[in-house]
C-alpha cells in the first residue's frame, strides 16, 4: 500500500494577517501545514500501520508544492511518521488549483500510488478544487470530504463516509483512487485498515511528532524538484484576477441545509464530534452546520487548535 499525501503550507491561522495593496501580505508570515493536510497525513499513517506497534504496512509519501522554505513544514509531516517526501518548487502567490492539480497528476504518474489522500481544501484560499481536478485528470474514482475511511482487507477498495449537506454518504471506491478528508477523519475511530484492531481508539487529532520522530525526520529522503522536471513548463497562475476582483465581497445565499432539521442521530453525532474536538458548536443539536472552513473556528484558551505547528515564541 503506497499513499501519496499532498501538503500545502498556509499562513498560521492564529496570527493576525496583514493586508497590503488589497492582498494578503505574506512577508514575515509564520507558516504551518494546512490543517486538513495534517489530517490527511494522520489518516494515511493510520491506514499504513498496526497501531501500538512500530510496524509499517505501507509507504506514505508526502508531496508539497511551494517555496524551498517549505521543507520545514514537510519535515514536520516526516516527523509525524511519513516515510519520504517530494517538494516541487513553486511560489506561494502563484499556486492556483489548476497548476497544483497538474503537478499532483504528474507526480502520480511517476509514483503510481494506490491512493492519493488530500485535505479537502486549504485554509488560505478555501478553494476546494484540487482533489476533484486531480481525480478528473487521472480518470480515477474520487471520494471527497471523507470523515471516515475503511480499507478493505484485500486492499483493493476503500469505503469512505463523505460529509454531505444532508448528512453522510457511504461510498466504496476501487483503488487506485483520490480521496480528500474532512475534520472528523481525526476522531479516535475514523480510520480502519483491517489490521489494527477494530476496537482501537486513537487519541483525537493529528498525532504529536515525538522527539524520536523529529530526530529521524532529518534523515528521511526529501527530493526537491522543479515543475520542469515533471514536464510542466511553468507554474504561472492560469487564472488572473480581473481589476477590482480582490475587493469584491459577496455574501453567499444561505444553504438549504444551514438551519434545516436533519436526522436527529446524525445531527447529534455531528454535535458530539465537534464537542469532542473542543470546538464550540454553532448550532443546536437539531441542525447541521453548513461546512465551515477551519480558520473560522475559534481557538480559545485550553481548546484544541485545529492547526498546529510553529507558533513563534
Amino acid at each position, binding site marked *: 500500500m503506497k499513499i501519496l499525501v499532498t501538503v500545502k503550507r498556509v499562513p498560521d491561522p492564529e496570527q*493576525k494577517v496583514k493586508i497590503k495593496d488589497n492582498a494578503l501580505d505574506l512577508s514575515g508570515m509564520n507558516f504551518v501545514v494546512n490543517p486538513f493536510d495534517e489530517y490527511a497525513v494522520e489518516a494515511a499513517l493510520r491506514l499504513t500501520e498496526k497501531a501500538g506497534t512500530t510496524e509499517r504496512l505501507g509507504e506514505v509519501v508526502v508531496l508539497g508544492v511551494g517555496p524551498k522554505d517549505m521543507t*520545514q513544514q514537510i519535515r514536520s509531516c516526516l*516527523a509525524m511518521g511519513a516515510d519520504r517526501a517530494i517538494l516541487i518548487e513553486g511560489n506561494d502567490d502563484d499556486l492556483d488549483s489548476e497548476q497544483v492539480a497538474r503537478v499532483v497528476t504528474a507526480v502520480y504518474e511517476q509514483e503510481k500510488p494506490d491512493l492519493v489522500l488530500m485535505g479537502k481544501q486549504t485554509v488560505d484560499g478555501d478553494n476546494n478544487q484540487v482533489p476533484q481536478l486531480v481525480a478528473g485528470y487521472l480518470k480515477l474514482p474520487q471520494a471527497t470530504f471523507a470523515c471516515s475511511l475503511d480499507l478493505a482487507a484485500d486492499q483493493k477498495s476503500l469505503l469512505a463516509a463523505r460529509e454531505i449537506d444532508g448528512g453522510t454518504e457511504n461510498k466504496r471506491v476501487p483503488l487506485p483512487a483520490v480521496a480528500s478528508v474532512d475534520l472528523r477523519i481525526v476522531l479516535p475511530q475514523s480510520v480502519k485498515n483491517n489490521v489494527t484492531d477494530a476496537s482501537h481508539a486513537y487519541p483525537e487529532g493529528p498525532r*504529536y511528532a515525538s*522527539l524520536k520522530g*523529529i*530526530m529521524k525526520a532529518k534523515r528521511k529522503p526529501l527530493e526537491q524538484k522543479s515543475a520542469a522536471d515533471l514536464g510542466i513548463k511553468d507554474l504561472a497562475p492560469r487564472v488572473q484576477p480581473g481589476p477590482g476582483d480582490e475587493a469584491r465581497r459577496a455574501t453567499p445565499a444561505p444553504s438549504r441545509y444551514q438551519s434545516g432539521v436533519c436526522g436527529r442521530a446524525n445531527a447529534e453525532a455531528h454535535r458530539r464530534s465537534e464537542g469532542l474536538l473542543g470546538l464550540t458548536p454553532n448550532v443546536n443539536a437539531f441542525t447541521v452546520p453548513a461546512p465551515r472552513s477551519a480558520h473560522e473556528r475559534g481557538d480559545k484558551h485550553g481548546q484544541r487548535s485545529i492547526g498546529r505547528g510553529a*507558533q513563534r*515564541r
Partner: protein
Amino acid sequence: MRNELDFLQVEDMIGDEERMIRDSVRAFVKEQALPTLVEHYRRGTFPRSLIQPMAELGLFGPTLADYGGAGVSELAYGLIMQELERGDSGLRSFCSVQSSLVIYPIHRFGSEQQRQRWLPSLIAGEAVGCFGLTEPDFGSNPAGMRTRARRVADGYVLDGTKRWITNGSIADVAVVFARNDEGEIQGFVVDTQTPGLTRREMSGKLSLRASATGELIFDECYLPDSALLPKGDGLKAALSCLNQARFGIAFGVVGAALACFDEALDYAKTRVQFGQPIAGFQLVQQELVESYNAIVQAQLLSLRLAELKGRGQASPVAISLAKRNNVAMALDVARRARDILGANGIVDDYGAMRHMCNLESVKTYEGTHNIHTLIVGQALTGIAAFSA
C-alpha cells in the same frame, strides 16, 4: 511571544529541529495537559494520566542516545522544560526529577545492572523516580545530613528521613543520599518497595499543588551492595544532578513567565475601564514593558547557557546565575500579571496566580535564591559567605 512581538528575533537563535520539538511539546501541553492540570491543581493531585503520553513524546531522559532516549540537544531539553512549565511548574518538576535527578545519575554514576534495571522503564514512563537529598533539618545545607548508611555484611542499612521529595509518594525508585560509617556522603538507588522504607504524601501545600511531594522514612532499611551508586563521589554527584535540573529550571520558568505575560497582555488590551482598554494607561504599559524586558533578558541568558552546556562549558556558577535571575524574573512577571488581571487574577480560570504560587516553590528548591546569591558571591569575591 507572538512573532510580531519578537523584537530581538530570538527565534532565529533556535534551530529547526529544536523548534519542531518545542512546538510539538507546546501543542501537547496546550491541548492535552493544561485542562487536566488545572483540575489536578484544584484537587492537589498529580495528573498521572499524563505520564504515558509524555513518555510517548519522548520527554523522559531525552538527551540520552541510549536505553530508549531520543538524543536531543541541551537546547531542545531546555525548550521542552519551557513548554512544560508554560503549562504548570508541577508538570515540569515531574519531568525535571525524572530526567535530571533520576535518569541522569543512574546513567552517569550507576552500575550496568542499575542502568539495565531502571533506565528503559524510567524512559518509557513505566517507572517513576524521585531524588532524596533534603531532610527536615537540612535544606540549604545538605552536607549536614543525618540519614545514615550503616555497613553490614553484603550491604547497608539506612536510617533517617528525607522530606520535601518531589514524586516521593508515587515513585518506584529513589536516588537517595546518606552518610556512611566514615562520615562520607554516598548515593543509593532504592526500589521503593524495599522493606523498611515507608512513604507519606505531604499535605497542605499552597504551591506546586499539581505535583506529588512526599516524605521517605528509612527505618532499618536493608540495601544490598548493588544498591550503591558506584561511580558517584557523594555530594559532588548530587550537585552535578542538581546542575542538570537547575539548567532546566532556568528555561522552565521562562515558560511560566511567558504564559503570565501573554495572558496579562491579552487581558489589558480587552479590559475596559474609564472608557478605554487598561492597556492604554501609562502605569499598565509600564508593567507590561518591565515584564517583557525581563523575559527577553532571561531568554537570552538561558539560550547562551544552552550553548555553553552543549559544549560542556556551562559552569555551576553560570547555572546558579541563570537559575537565580530567571526564577526571580518569572515570579516578578507572574505577580505583575496577577495585578493587571485585577479580581480575575485570583481565580483559576486564569493562570497567573497558579504560576505565581508555583514559582514560590521553584524559588526555594534546587538551591534557594539566597544560596545562589552566595554561590555567585563566592565566585566573585573568592570568599565563601555560607560555610559554618
